[in-house]
């Protein structure tokens, strides 16, 4: 079989789509984080706009609903002066039976410059990137269980902001790893940026042993997983895990894998607690921890805008 070129990069190795963190060199991740840093100040200005994407059309294609993520992309695009078109495809074309590629062809004909795609199927943004017009850039805003690269990058920005460097860190990711695109993107990003110890913590139904091949240490015991960690990333637990025979109840999950002050005390004294949101208080995280001094959950949201601005501006500057 031929080794195919990473579809995210052009022949010069520049980023033309952001589909996954996997396969991106450290230099590109660092470039995105550094660029995000320069945009952070824009968000503090009275006039929160820069003209980098003036005249460009960014289409938010959400085949799966997510008001939060869509809003952050919309804000980021608007602060770059782009025209933003929000399409809630879950409610329009797809329900009329139009195929994914027909939808993309139609929107391409409307002279889109960038597609921000959220889809329930792993890999859908790859299909779109393969079939859209060459000048169109695709940003994966979450595909199935596969990837959520901008979330991964904003998590990296947050870690770098508070920890300064990645080189001596222990990062614990706790919860429903098997269904989490955030966890996969975090694992790839942390690995690429040189974090020496990444732990995946949760029960065997949610943390498969195959994860070891992604370079993580699998822990089924919460206390062992959190011990001496510099960063604890909690994942949201979906209610449907209880009906799929993966867990008996939210209560029992909280007892074994919920992040409480007692458990957090096992981590490093200066540990930070992160969560991609929205949080389930009392299911994966205790309110005292979510609102406590170790929590950086709200800064994550702020950094998220700057990171998405960075991604879009870098993509717009690179040609296929």
């Amino acid at each position, binding site marked *: *079989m*031929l080794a*195919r070129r*990473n*579809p995210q990069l052009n022949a010069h190795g520049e980023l033309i789509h952001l589909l996954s963190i*996997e396969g991106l060199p450290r230099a590109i991740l660092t470039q995105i984080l550094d660029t995000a840093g320069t945009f952070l100040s824009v968000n503090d200005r009275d006039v929160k706009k820069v003209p980098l994407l003036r005249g460009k059309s960014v289409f938010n294609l959400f085949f799966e609903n997510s008001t939060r993520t869509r809003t952050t992309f919309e804000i980021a695009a608007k602060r770059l002066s782009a025209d933003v078109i929000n399409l809630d495809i879950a409610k329009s074309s797809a329900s009329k039976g139009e*195929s*994914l*590629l027909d939808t993309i062809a139609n929107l391409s004909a409307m002279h889109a410059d960038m597609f921000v795609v959220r*889809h329930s*199927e*792993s*890999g*859908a943004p*790859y*299909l779109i990137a393969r*079939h859209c017009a060459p000048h169109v850039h695709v940003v994966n805003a979450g*595909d*199935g*269980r*596969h*990837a959520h690269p901008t979330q991964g990058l904003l998590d990296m920005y947050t870690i770098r902001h508070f920890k300064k460097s990645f080189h001596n860190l222990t990062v614990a990711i706790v919860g429903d790893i*098997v269904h989490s*695109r955030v966890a*996969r993107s975090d694992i790839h990003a942390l690995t690429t940026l040189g974090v020496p110890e990444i732990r995946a913590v949760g029960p065997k139904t949610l943390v*498969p042993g*195959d*994860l070891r*091949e*992604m370079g993580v240490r699998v822990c089924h015991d919460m206390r062992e997983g959190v011990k001496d960690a510099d960063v604890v990333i909690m994942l949201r637990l979906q209610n449907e895990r209880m009906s799929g025979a993966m867990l008996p109840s939210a209560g029992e999950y909280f007892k074994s894998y919920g992040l409480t002050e007692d458990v957090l005390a096992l981590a490093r004294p200066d540990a930070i607690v992160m969560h991609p949101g929205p949080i389930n208080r009392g299911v994966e995280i205790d309110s005292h921890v979510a609102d406590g001094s170790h929590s950086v959950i709200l800064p994550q949201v702020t950094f998220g805008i700057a990171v998405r601005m960075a991604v879009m501006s870098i993509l717009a500057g690179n040609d296929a």
Partner: protein
Amino acid sequence: MKILIRNGRVVDPASGRDEAADVAIAAGRIVAIGQVPADFTPERTIDADGCVVAPGLVDLAARLKEAGAGALESELAAAAAGGVTSLVCPPDTDPPLDEPGLVDMLKFRARKLSRCRLFPLGALTQRLAGVELTEMIDLTEAGCVGFSQAERPVKDNLTLMRAMQYASTHGYAVWLRPQDASLSGGVAASGAVATRLGLSGVPVAAETIALNTILELVRQTGTRVHLCRLSSAAGVELVRRAKAEGLPVTADVSINSLHLTDVDIGYFNSDMRLTPPLRQGKDRDALRAGLADGTIDALVSDHTPVGDDDKMLPFGEAVPGATGLELLLSLALKWGDESKLSVAQALARVTSGPVRVLGEALGSLGQSAGRLVEGGVADICVFDPEAQWQVTPEALRSHGKHTPFDAASSGTRMPGRVRHTLVAGTLAYSAEPVRSAGANIA
């Protein structure tokens, strides 16, 4: 018509014959191999210089898409172009082959096209719903060579046991794809690749649990069972032990599982969306070894034409399956070559091996199909073993254009090219015009 195939290298896996010889054909049968009678006056002569003259291929799994619509012509043309002279079609046509009239019609239409012999499997249960048995005697009289659920589950083990008991009462074989229904909901094989790509997995246990159940029921009922499309090392091992125990089972593997692994999914290439899913390297190695040592009796194309609308979708939404009839010979030769087997050994798994699986269901044809014998049917594949080619979808005759071996995505080099295919002594396919007789004899 009298045909003479001259100057070829005759390879017959069943007898072990591998020598330069002429083959004379008359009235649909092979009249001589080697010493052609002096008074034999062919109407056509095929110059097989540099080519192998082999038995026509027998493919135990090729879907023809619809039982009713016009797809039959293209798919049987694809078979002929692939050197396949007999194929077994699973019953999951639309509608499923659960009554004799449908089987009659399918066989009648295939005969009229005279490209390839078609042997349907009857549905084991009505509408393949897995609940009520079909009329197996009538279906067999209509031409079914065995009974199968294709990819559909049987309701429960009691129904499966009864179906096997009933089939064995009449000496019919049951063809089963070992897959536990509740464990088979995923879209890729469980493992590091599926985990990394965020694709739902099908564990090896889906195959081994089903195999253990089937083998236990074979022990109970004595039913002759053919196990379709093994995909795992553990599955091969279970079949190896079952055969050592003397159970009446046979097995096949698809060209896809024989050559590919889940790593080939790459960046969500939906041409790799297959059932059973592609598994890991150790599984592929075990399948290759099992096919070489005879644990697995036959290599099949698992030909499944899937249109663009059903393939150009996100990986998990794409319809599983790949075109394969025109690739079977080359992928058999490729495996043989890579496994350091002789051409005869490689061809055995697509000729004499599958005929042994079919056994008595072939009737008198069983004496000579998949073999080259004087007096036997002239189902013959003439191919150039040195020719290399690459798969380009537009050049395929099948309606199915999607294959993991597409040159554009895989770059796979295919060894061996079919030059002529004869079915019952008639040319069903020729890559080049055949010279008329008179000029040749001089």
